[in-house]
């Protein structure tokens, strides 16, 4: 099953590699991994999307907790949570496609953030499935470049992850 795990980690050099090393050394899968400092600059927050049976996920959270730099670990998918990913996608937008492309971006609530004579760069946020759907909806030959951040997640309502 797909799980989305949030990790609070000391903002130390090498913290990211400790975590990614643990996954590769023990043969766990990483679908995506995002990391950035939090409001407290001494701490980073990581979101790891992984797949595995309940047993494997339990092992992953235990191994994460064992890392000295890791402050807290939460499996967000255990309860209600929100998940967002940002995609920047550059598409061909010549005179012929321009209108269609703009309309498609609007339908998906994307924003055109850069324009040239024959390209648009569209910014789109959502969960992974929505971004996938947008890509599917486009004429594949019109896609020039895509970049996705991987998912970030947060618990719903009063579910708060902090120290």
């Amino acid at each position, binding site marked *: 099953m797909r799980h989305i795990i949030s990790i609070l*980690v*000391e903002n130390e*050099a*090498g913290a990211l*590699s*400790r975590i990614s*090393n643990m996954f590769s*050394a023990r043969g766990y899968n990483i679908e995506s991994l995002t990391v950035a400092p939090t409001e407290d600059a001494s701490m980073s927050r990581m979101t790891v999307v992984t797949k595995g049976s309940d*047993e494997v996920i*339990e*092992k992953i959270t*235990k*191994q994460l*907790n*064992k890392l*000295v*730099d*890791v*402050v807290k670990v939460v499996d967000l998918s255990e309860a209600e949570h929100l998940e967002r990913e940002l995609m920047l996608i550059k598409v061909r937008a010549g005179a012929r496609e321009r209108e269609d492309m703009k309309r498609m971006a609007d339908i998906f609530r994307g924003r055109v953030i850069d324009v040239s004579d024959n390209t648009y760069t569209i910014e789109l946020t959502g969960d992974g499935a929505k971004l996938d759907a947008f890509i599917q909806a486009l004429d594949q030959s019109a896609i020039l470049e895509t970049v996705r951040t991987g998912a970030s997640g947060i618990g719903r309502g009063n579910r708060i992850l902090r*120290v």
Partner: protein
Amino acid sequence: MDRVKTEELTGAEIVIRCLQAEGVEYVFGYPGGAVLWIYDELFKQDKVRHVLVRHEQGAAHAADGYSRSSNKIGVCLVTSGPGLTNAVTGIATAYMDSIPMVIISGQVPTHAIGEDAFQECDTVGITRPCVKHNFLVRDVKDLAVTIKKAFHIATTGRPGPVLVDIPKDVTTHKCEFHYPETVSMRSYNPVKKGHAGQIKKAAQLLLEARRPMIYTGGGVVLSNAAPQLRELVKLTGFPVTNTLMGLGGYPGTDPKFLGMLGMHGTYQANMAMQHCDVLIAIGARFDDRVIGNPEHFALNPRKIIHIDIDPSSISKRVRVDLPIVGNIPDVLDDFLKLLQDRKPQDIKAWWKQIDEWRGNDCLRYDHAAKVIKPQYVLEKLYEVTGGEAIITSDVGQHQMWAAQFYKFDKPRRWINSGGLGTMGFGLPAAMGATLANPGATVACVTGESSIQMCLQELSTCKQYRLPIKIINLNNKYMGMVRQWQQFFHGNRYSESYMDALPDFVKLAEGYGHSGVLIDKPADVEPALREAFKRKKDLVFLDFLTDQTENVYPMIPGGKGITEMILSEDL
């Protein structure tokens, strides 16, 4: 408040002052460019003594042996690049067996890091998977607190090696020195006490057991829980087995002890593991060499209680019914309180069954042989030393025979590389054990193949007058490899014959020690007696043993714990 005048010290001075503050007696190391300033400061003082090894692998193993054989922490000091990479095998060995250790490594100057400088390597990257934690100190102001953290992390929770990498320029930079008494880290707070409710439930389970079994590992030795374990067995009368790492955790001569379990464990211990109805695992991790195939192990229903300081060890290979995370002595103290004045079930029938298994006498061997049987050497070693020696070993058949035939009544007397299985460990570990236990008898049980992997340390033994007795079981084969090739590879002895062996007697003499060649069973005991009389000398005893002897019982890889090959099966 008077402000205490603090001194400005160089990084190198700070390193030494920190080691002094930690009460470090010995540092095992080897100098080189990046650590020259640290060596300079070592030279100027006499509190911390340095032991110059002949290869950095020896430094790490010696620090490790020092830790294992005492309740103190081993420290090693190596230079950047090859100094560190040579030590990696020793660091990984300590990591696999959860041995507390601090490694200080030199690094190229901060401005040169990443430029492929001379003797540069990514130390933190290379060691990351085989240390509990590691640090690169980029600012001298962080040095003292980082070293404090290293000692703190290495010795608390599930222990392990911690490395501090120090660039050369940091050892020359100055700052005010203050060594913190304690450190607190928000991300690192190992538990001590176990969950009271879980302990209560577990105690109840033990009281209801009809076929109980106590299975303990290295955690009991490391956490100094042997007294509590003895008390638990005394209170309950339950049978107990130790893993290879746990030997000495419970007295090997006690009738409640069923011997070691696992791949080369006793018939009775393995049978009892499979057929018990309540199993209490203490500081042990159900690894592949211990319970064999986990699916086979699961064929018999039983309730499992697992006490361990490390939550990630619980339900890793075998699903556990009642986990208790905590420091073993604390948890066992709580157990003992609950079990006091309570009566467990009558388990006479269980003991009768166990004694029947025991009657199989699975460790028997041919006493009338014309050639020296390795088992015989170990039996005699046990007799001659009165069971009081610290025994280190290398890896292979000799290691298993030592574990089977030397009865360890106390913890920290059996020093071997259980997890990583590092050949070459025995001799340097014996050096550490000798220095940690002045006056103790230390023997290194080894084989002609293993001993050659860190042979150069004979020179260190000479320099520091370390009177280790080397028990070389020389069968001219990598015995365990040969055994597997015989059993599972159709007698094709691919590259396991040790040709062109040195004359070990001359070799020992070449290093300034004594050597003795023993090739007749009748000479075994006199040679051992003679050697152990020489309290001040290292004696290399080269026993020419039966070349085809195998270790029994044996659970073949991937098989179940009761699917043992016994000697008569062949």
